[in-house]
């Protein structure tokens, strides 16, 4: 279990729409026992057009592996500024990553989507492991991932 509180530690892109109006959101990602080393996960948001809007968290410290988080890498070219101050260790198989951050109200019910890309050394890359629309209705509903993520939930 990893619990991380990152108050307002967001890129400008996500905090701009409603600077004054934000609410704490807890994102919980639980991995299944895929039988490999710690997974690199990146949580990021795209807008209604599918364009990259900003990153929420990078789990994994070695930038040379970021290319395996291929959707995120393609959108950002691996720009370290995108995850400056919002990164931590990789997440072991079967473990849970929990982060709490203040997300702008304007992001909800406006077509934004939270994505999780995952990668494990010597195993297949899994971009877009999770893609969940940011809606107030969807909060608290666990979603299953494709390969490594057993469940992903965001709660307000």
């Amino acid at each position, binding site marked *: 279990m990893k619990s991380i509180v990152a108050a307002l530690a967001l890129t400008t892109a996500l905090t701009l729409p409603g600077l004054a109006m934000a609410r704490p959101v807890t994102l919980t990602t639980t991995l299944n026992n895929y039988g490999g080393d710690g997974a690199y996960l990146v949580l990021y948001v795209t807008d209604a057009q599918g364009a990259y809007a900003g990153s929420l968290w990078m789990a994994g*410290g070695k930038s*040379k592996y970021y*290319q395996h988080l291929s959707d995120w890498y393609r959108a950002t*070219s691996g720009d370290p500024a995108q995850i400056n101050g919002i990164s931590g260790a990789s997440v072991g198989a079967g473990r849970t990553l929990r982060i709490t951050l203040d997300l702008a109200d304007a992001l909800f019910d406006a077509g934004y989507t939270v994505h999780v890309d995952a990668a494990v050394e010597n195993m*297949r890359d899994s971009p877009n492991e999770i893609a969940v629309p940011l809606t107030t209705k969807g909060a608290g509903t666990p979603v299953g991932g*494709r390969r490594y993520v057993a469940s992903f939930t965001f709660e307000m």
Partner: protein
Amino acid sequence: MIRTLHRWPGLVALVLLTILALSGAALSVFPAAERLAAPRTEAGLTVAVLAERIRSAYPGVEQIRRAPSGRVIAYWFDAGAPGAAVIYPETGQGVASADPSQTERWLTNLHRSLFLDDAGRLATAAGAAAMLILALSGAVLVARRAGGWRRWFARLRGPLPGRLHVEIARIAVAGLLLSSATALWMAASTFGLLPTATAPAAPVPNHVSGQVGAALGVMDVLAQTPVAEFRELSFPYPGDATDVFTLKTDRGTGYLDQGTGTLLGWVDLTTWEHVTETIYMLHTGRGAATLGLALGLMALGVPVMGVTGVVVWLAGRRARPKISGNVAAGRAETIILVGSEGGSTWSFAATLHRALTEAGQAVHVAPMSAFDPARSGKAQRFLILAATYGDGSAPASAKGFLDRLTGLDAVPLAPVAVLGFGDRNYPAFCAFARDVADAIEAKGFERLLPYDTIDRQSPQDFARWGHSLGAALGIPLELAHQPVPPATEPLTLTSRRDYGAEVQAPTAILRFAVPEMSAWRRLTGQGMSRFQAGDLLGILPEGSTVPRFYSLASGSRDGFVEIVVKKQAGGLCSGQLVALQPGDRVAAFLRRNPGFHAGRQSRPLILIGAGTGIGPLAGIVRGNTQLRPILLVFGMRHPDSDFLYRENLVAWQGEGRLARLVTAVSRGDRPHYVQDALRGEAAQVARMIRDGARVMVCGGRGMAAGVSDALAEILAPAGLTPATLKAQGRYVEDVY
């Protein structure tokens, strides 16, 4: 300096390097195994055909990867469930699980981070740095020991641990250099100290056709890329018309339109990426499985070198006295060079060092083998204290000195004094020191003092030389040498057998109990824990500080310590020994004599000895459990009086430990000497030597000379001489 640089990283990192080397060696097996297990790809197969086969077997295929081993893995989604398998290229069907081996994963994590994440990565990087320093400094030491880089593979002499250490090192050093240097590179890359290897991804092509569903076969790039160059093909996301095919090959990365198959963009691999990949391949063996196995094999030498290195270090510490306040070579005015076999010359050097230091000199003491005037810039004089090994060879700490001397480009201005240590009873008295003095003269060094000698460690001789040295330096110099008595252990006599009284040569076979010792001493081979026939037993007689040496007639496996002693007229030590009764004790210590060991080979042995010289030869026969053919030629005065080991020899012959026994009797009607007996066996001796036999001679000097002459006659028809056999290490003598 170099030695220090070699010793401390080695001792500090011993455990870490053992773990890294063993895990590395184990990991080296995986790429080779993967290569053997990977299904073969038919010649000329293209990526287009392979991908088409896989897509018909797994319609949800997302990615195909080919490892350097040739193993192809496909990843797919089927009804929302991810799948992966090793692919049989001829059918496109999965044949094995693609999950990485848990053992390999465990070993990899141990090898690179000791399961400690970044802290462990730093530790293993430090281990790699230590290994690199060890390999470089060790290479210099090997070259120095062998007497130059060109003599890298020269024959080694000396005690087994040191020999084993160098024997392994000079083969393994290449692999260890490569593995440690590439490890450091990879560590630097992991910690972001190197520019990232990956070029920025090609910009997403804006001009995709928007169509989907082109057949793989019509995509030119795929149809032109042979599988041998192929690395990875990623399929576009189903339902995303803007996505593309991404192809990675040995040459670079390309993007293909999923509707038309046209190449939308191509990025070549950068030189930097090539370098990084090559280094990764060299370290892991992925893509170079045979090299990987070779590196793994070399890594296995690390634990052995660790253990032998510690043994050598401990032995060296014990052998030479601690010299306190030894000034660095670069700052010393006086350099004392020591050529010592057993350590006694070191104790003289220590006395000299102390006296000169008290007189206000900056003095550096070093083994002769470390002689390097270039590193002794401030030296105003060199004092060489040299013992002699055997019949005029260099003692252990002077190996390679003469080669270094002759190889000098420039002769230093500092004058030299040579002092020889030896025993006037030997014809080769101070022969090596003499050679050194001559070579120094010939090289054109200035002479500080005339060549001088010390007979049988005489403190008086040494003090006299000290006065001359003091006079030359203009300082009063009193060298009061107290010989450091060797560390002895009490040996208790358990039995004795007497011979020779009737022929005026009272001789006794003395058998002592092996002294009890701690497990640590046994494990590190200290004291009398391990010895074999042919090694020397030093006995310190009461009333003397100078030890006498006797050849051992037993090995530690026999469970007792045995020597053969003849009472010498007026001999202090032999008199005391021959008077011993069971239960009595003597002070003794062990000196290894690897030059006179029987060795482990199965080649035949010709053992020749007279009188007490039978001792080590009998010990060798007793220890001949592998029943190698042994011919023993033994000379005595009279069979009824001094036929030493008579009953044993008969019994050993019955057991096959001794193939043939020939005796020569020197008293009586027809005096017959060892060399005569040898001539009588000429045919067999010649045959055995042709079969690779080793000749070992033990006894008096006169007998040894006679034997050498007889052998020369016997060998002449075969075009061999005793000298050629000696050079091959097949003719050894232990004479007194």
